[in-house]
């Protein structure tokens, strides 16, 4: 099941980053009165190493989702490059080893969680007997046992988000890319996500995720990058940043994006 470029004799070594973004630029053409070019990501570079939990922070519209869309090959970069497991993302990448949780997604409304996961499991080529076991595991993990045979269209926002998490970890991936994993979840759900990320880290997985919850990021991340208007504003180990700025992550964030308290 695990086919990876790492074993296929590529020039990948243990020290090489799992995820590498190099001077990435993404422009969108915005059709308006006159055609404008909107720069969503502007010269972004970063690396994520194996086993790290990496926080990808920035205000709304900073370019986080756009960057992730490039990583998964949904959007072609205007210039610059990005690599996952050492392979350029414009190549058919090693998706077998990636788990992806998109922001604001609805899953096939007329399927049940079981059916949805079975469908994704087939694409991952998980053998039938293993798949059923794995589905039980992930449904239990996101606490949807009571709803596993209900059509997804009857689900609440948080329940949809839980299915999203379940499908992201289904194939036991080495790299997880989460776009705002805790959005729409209640406090217990948020804690659960933190636990899941922690557990993935303990298993040696790499997690790259965006979030607006600074407290959460402070507790689970090894390293963070803060971007604004498509550009990196700050990057480093969480502990280093806290020591350097002498304030908590939320305050650092607000300072870096130029927020002045109005009261």
């Amino acid at each position: 099941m695990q086919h990876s470029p790492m074993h296929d004799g590529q020039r990948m070594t243990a020290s090489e980053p799992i995820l590498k973004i190099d001077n990435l630029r993404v422009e969108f053409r915005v059709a308006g009165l006159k055609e404008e070019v909107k720069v969503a990501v502007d010269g972004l570079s970063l690396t994520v190493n194996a086993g790290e939990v990496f926080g990808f922070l920035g205000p709304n519209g900073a370019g986080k989702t756009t960057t992730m869309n490039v990583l998964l090959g949904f959007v072609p970069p205007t210039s610059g490059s990005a690599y996952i497991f050492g392979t350029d993302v414009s190549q058919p990448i090693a998706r077998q080893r990636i788990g992806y949780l998109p922001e604001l997604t609805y899953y096939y409304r007329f399927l049940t969680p079981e059916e949805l996961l079975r469908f994704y499991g087939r694409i991952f080529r998980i053998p039938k007997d293993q798949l059923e076991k794995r589905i039980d595991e992930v449904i239990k993990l996101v606490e949807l046992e009571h709803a596993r045979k209900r059509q997804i269209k009857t689900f609440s926002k948080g329940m949809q988000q839980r299915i999203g998490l379940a499908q992201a970890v289904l194939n036991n991936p080495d790299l997880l890319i989460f776009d705002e994993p805790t959005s729409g979840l209640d406090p217990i759900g948020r804690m659960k996500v933190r636990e899941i990320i922690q557990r993935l880290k303990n298993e040696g997985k790499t997690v790259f995720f965006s979030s607006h919850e600074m407290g959460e990021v402070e507790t689970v991340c090894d390293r963070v990058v803060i971007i604004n208007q498509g550009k990196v504003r700050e990057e480093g180990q969480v502990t280093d940043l806290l020591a350097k700025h002498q304030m908590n992550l939320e305050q650092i964030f607000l300072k870096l994006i130029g927020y002045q308290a109005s009261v």
Partner: protein
Amino acid sequence: MMTNAMALAGVVVREMYRRKDFYVLLILTVIITLAMGSVNFFNDDKIVRYLKELCLLLIWISTLVMAISMAARQLPMERESRTIFPLLAKPISRGEVILGKFLGCWFACGLALLVFYVFFSVLTGVREHDLPVLSYFQAIWLHWMMLGIVTAMVILGSLIFAAPSSNATISFVVSAGILLLGRHLNKVALQMSEPSSTILYTIYYNIPHLEIFDVRDLIVHNQPPIEWGWWALATPYAAVYIAIFLFAACWIFKRKSLSA
């Protein structure tokens, strides 16, 4: 490649039988046919023919509407509900997505056709005490091939036209136009002046001639089945058009930037 496409096709078929549209079309066809049939109580030859003709016409319209509306909404729905993102993040290529969507719609059409023709067989069986199995088999098969061409065309259209509704409308007009006028275009062209004549000839020689898949007249008039050689030729003819449409769809889809 086939595993991924078939997995996706399974989702499409499941969608068809969990949605209401198919049942609505089926019930409408049954009710209209039975209502017309109950008007007379004699087994007048003409009336039976008329009834068969009507029932087949309803089946053709229903399945065409179903095939077009189903194929037209597949990719736009994936974009709108954003299910395309978790899907493409998995080890599945965009080409496999197109193929899976096509196969799903086409299989769903096949299932619907079977149900419709079972009703038709019961109807004619009761009225004529006869069941020309071979003729019906030919008719269903050809009908299914025709829907395959239409489905592939609509999937291509869903990548070209922005709104699913305009795609569906244009596809319906084009399909119905070919079915009604396709075989006469060359005769019309003959009477035209240049350059419209050449243009019309070009159209005539390039469009998929959906009307050749239509053997309703033979069934209505209880004619023997068409020659099996011709019947067999119709399948590769359909396959060529399906392949052209699907390749074009893949080509466009592979180059599409998918954001928001």
